[in-house]
């Protein structure tokens, strides 16, 4: 069933009841969305907009008050739907007394993996997430970035077709954040569907095929990223090694065109602070 959407959220409403049934809070209101197989879907929105609640409903950790959710056509309320999904919660903690390798072994065993297959898979995941050197260290001594990468490794251990990532770069430094971003891009090239939330919009812009913007428990915008962020009446050209004469010629051409055509700005584009940080951090150590 290659056309079956990876995730279907159908008119989802979630109301949290207060103590003694008073003070009910509607976290998600009549939300519908679909994540197509093989795409990276970004769910963004301010704190308290209902993103995490939606994810939990998709994973079957919460029961919808109304509506339904499914993973590859199987209702999320059925445990079997979780064969196809791996989940990385926000700021995950694992059993501190286990080593990285033991942690992956534990999660693999929970998915009925065993023997040589499990051992091989654990080694693959340690290699993929760059944790081979820390495999025998207890998780209690891991940095935040390493915990996130271990979280990704455990989410992938049973070869899921869908990854659900809740703020995968929260609290991680830009270099670690970049590694996770690259991994998400890698997942997409390998056909894994990714449903991701993040507050780092620049990163979301780099990895997502489609985004949904939530506010107050509702979907307020949804669509292909390029369609949503494109400014329809503007065109961008970036020239390399353009002489001042050529730039003047272009300006003159634009002026000569007349009508509504205007040159809004020109000059040297700036790199991002993130790129500058990564370049500086990766410079060889001076003796």
């Amino acid at each position, binding site marked *: 069933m290659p056309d079956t959407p990876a995730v279907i959220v159908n008119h989802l409403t979630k109301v949290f009841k207060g103590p003694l049934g008073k003070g009910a809070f509607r976290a998600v209101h009549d939300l519908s969305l679909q994540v197509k197989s093989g795409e990276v879907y970004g769910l963004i929105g301010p704190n308290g907009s209902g993103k995490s609640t939606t994810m939990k409903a998709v994973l079957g950790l919460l029961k919808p008050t109304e509506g339904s959710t499914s993973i590859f056509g199987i209702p999320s309320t059925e445990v079997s739907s979780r064969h196809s999904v791996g989940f990385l919660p926000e700021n995950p903690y694992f059993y501190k*007394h286990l080593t990285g390798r033991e942690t992956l072994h*534990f999660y693999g065993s*929970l998915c009925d993996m065993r023997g040589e297959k499990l051992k091989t898979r654990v080694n693959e995941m340690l290699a993929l997430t760059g944790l081979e050197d820390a495999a025998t260290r207890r998780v209690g001594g891991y940095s935040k970035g390493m915990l996130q990468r271990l*979280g990704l490794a455990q989410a992938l251990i049973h070869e899921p077709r869908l990854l659900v990532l809740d703020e995968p770069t929260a609290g991680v430094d830009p270099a670690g954040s970049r590694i996770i971003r690259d991994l998400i891009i890698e997942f997409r090239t*390998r056909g894994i569907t990714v449903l991701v939330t993040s507050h780092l919009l620049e990163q979301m812009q780099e990895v997502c095929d489609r985004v949904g913007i939530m506010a107050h428990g509702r979907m307020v915008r949804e669509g292909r990223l390029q369609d949503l962020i494109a400014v329809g009446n503007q065109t961008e050209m970036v020239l390399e090694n353009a002489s001042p004469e050529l730039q003047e010629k272009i300006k003159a051409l634009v002026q000569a065109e007349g009508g509504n055509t205007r040159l809004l700005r020109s000059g040297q584009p700036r790199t991002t602070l993130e790129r500058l940080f990564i370049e500086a951090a990766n410079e060889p150590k001076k003796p």
Partner: protein
Amino acid sequence: MIDITQNPVSTATPKVRFSPRRVWTLAMATVTQLIRMKILAFLVLFCLLAAGAGFAFSVINPEQQLNLLKSVTLGALQIFSIVIGVVSTALLLPKDLEDRTLYTILSKPVPRFDYLLGKLLGVLLLIGGGLIVMDVVLSLVLWLRQTMLLDSYVASLRLENMDSPEALAQVREIVAKQGLTWNLHWAVWAIFLKAAVVTTVALLLSSIASSTLFTIVITFCVTIIGHGESLIREFFFRPYLSSLAGRSAAFVLAALCPDLAQFDIVDSVVNGETVPWGAIYDMTGIAALYMTVYLFVTHLLFVEKEL
């Protein structure tokens, strides 16, 4: 290149059924977690104290000495097993939820019942393992003590020229009755059963409680009430003792709390009485019944729990 999805378009999704192997994985992780939380260090310290206590009592007579040794160590074992069971269980579930470990476990194809059973089994394995170690230590200490006491008492009888065959036989009989017998192991088994029932109650409460302290306090209250079930029943079946409201409260308590007095054979064992097989079967059956019912209710509550 590493193949992340070796079977990316596989759509054969097997049904998830109860898996003893999965439960065992969870139980072993729980045991490791508790052991690395220095619970084992506490156990070793306790063993040393118990062993030391065996030689610490002042000389009264062999019967009283052995009696006292069994009474103190078995009493301490009861407290140890219940405290470990309640505190461990009360800590584990909320900690998994707080650390979001529960999310990563339950977002895998793991039924909630398997998770609950794994946690319970892990705590029970730890208590059971601890009690086996303690049983071995206690048996060794008791055997050493009874041998030493017998030797010294026989020597004192000889010194006073009172070592007639009848007197010696009587002393040997008293020491053998109060010393190491199979009854000691049955007492440890009863202690385990009681701790197992209380641990299951703690699991039930921790599945609905919002704080660890609440679980610990209420479970200890249930444990205390459970030891007085006979009084509560008497209160309920004798209308002249109380009002309707009082009797209703007594009924609710009697229905909800386990009758832990069913497992109180320690006093009999301390007094050197023989524990009949029927009593052991009854205790085991009652414990199994309580645990099944409490675990079933826990499952019903936990499966509906919003995480």
